[in-house]
């Protein structure tokens, strides 16, 4: 049984934290790009969507080049702070955040664009500051679209495999998430164990889907 719960717990921990990071960054960027017009806006938009279309192995390689021990930023993390992200569960969180960011960003941006600008203007005429307008008017009105994006991001982070394997490796108990545990069990010809892990991950994903469906309906 621990062989199931350890990767399950790790998977949930990584996916939740990744959703949190992708959520904050994605909502902020969605808000920014929904209301500002500037040169290169479509380029920024494409860059943010890139992790959704690039193969996960390409994301993994980019991350190795950036945060590896000899990477562009990684060498300074190592030298100045003694931080190594490769082969750690924190590295898995970064990989999962990057691949799930487009889902939050796209959902948030579309949701903000649909919010009628007159509500925000009305709030401003009543003396609300920009932060207050965002927190008390735009965000609540866009919440349904954002929640859908967050759910999809969580599901994507739960199933992340390629980039995670390249960044965090396959260390049982440390970085071996459910999807990687399934891969290893099949590689080892351990079909019985693979079946159990597959059932667990299927149940988790079903719960997420049903819960997100309920959540979205109840707000209707």
């Amino acid at each position, binding site marked *: 049984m621990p062989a199931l719960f350890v990767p399950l717990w790790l998977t949930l921990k990584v996916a939740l934290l990744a959703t949190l990071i992708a959520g904050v960054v994605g909502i902020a960027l969605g808000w920014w790009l929904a209301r500002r017009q500037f040169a290169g806006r479509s380029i920024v938009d494409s860059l943010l969507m890139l992790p959704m279309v690039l193969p996960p192995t390409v994301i993994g390689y980019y991350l190795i080049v950036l945060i590896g*021990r000899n990477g562009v930023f990684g060498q300074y993390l190592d030298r100045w702070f003694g931080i190594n992200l*490769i082969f750690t569960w924190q590295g898995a969180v970064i990989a999962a955040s990057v691949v799930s960011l487009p889902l939050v960003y796209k959902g948030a941006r579309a949701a903000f664009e649909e919010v009628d600008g007159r509500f925000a203007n009305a709030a401003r005429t009543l003396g609300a500051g920009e932060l207050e307008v965002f927190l008390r008017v735009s965000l609540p009105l866009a919440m349904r679209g954002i929640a859908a994006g967050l759910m999809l991001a969580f599901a994507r982070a739960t199933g992340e495999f390629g980039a995670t394997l390249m960044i965090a490796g396959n*260390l049982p108990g440390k970085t071996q998430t459910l999807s990687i545990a399934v891969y290893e069990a099949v590689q*080892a*010809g351990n079909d019985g164990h693979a079946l159990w892990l597959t059932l667990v991950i299927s149940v988790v994903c079903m719960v997420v889907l049903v819960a997100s469906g309920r959540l979205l309906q109840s707000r209707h």
Partner: protein
Amino acid sequence: MRMSTRLRRAAVAAALLLGSAASGAQELVVSAAASLTNAFQAVGKSFEQARPGAKVTFNFAASGPLLAQIQQGAPVDVFASADQETMNRAASANLIALSTRADFAANTLVLILPTASTQAPTQLSDLAGGAFRRISTGTPATVPVGRYTMEAIDKAGLTEALQSRWIYGESVRQVLNYVARGEVDAGFVYRTDALIEPGKTRIALTVPTGTPVTYPIARVAASSNAVLANEFIAYVRSAPGQDILQRHGFSKP
């Protein structure tokens, strides 16, 4: 009307593409241990020249996953593993033609470091020092180099001291890659692998293994291409085949 012509053209193009992949020479699928990658690619080319009409397709990975694939019915003709244990498992599951099994090469386990490393370990117990925070080898359950490593570490009485430092690779070539990138402080690979990345890694130690590192080869029992499979095995063991293997650093079994 125009649309249907286009569709038909697309269908013809697709059929041609699929057809060209399926047709042609007599194809042999060889699943071989990752450490054999470079040597077997050269052997395969030489075999194709010696035997016109034959086309060798390689499937390189750690021996464990290769065995699992054969077990699940992958259409493989020849299997070459980096240890006897994996081949024994194949034999006891009746997956290979026993009469064709033979050892064709030998190797040695070495400890390698990134070239930039300032360390110079002279024995395995030096790995217990603080400079080696991350040490890589193959996943012991599926990758032979991991099993050879653990056997040597066990014999040196270092199992507990090194327990939390292992970074497991999916094949010996991934271990090599981790060391070459400097992501780990040291790694266990075969001597032949270390020779591939001479600029980025250096050999610190030759590690004696209790079980000698020998490579068995055999025809897969379910092969539909038995004659060609036997010819390939014979070629690997012949003088030209052995020459190529030795040029890549393998020794005779």
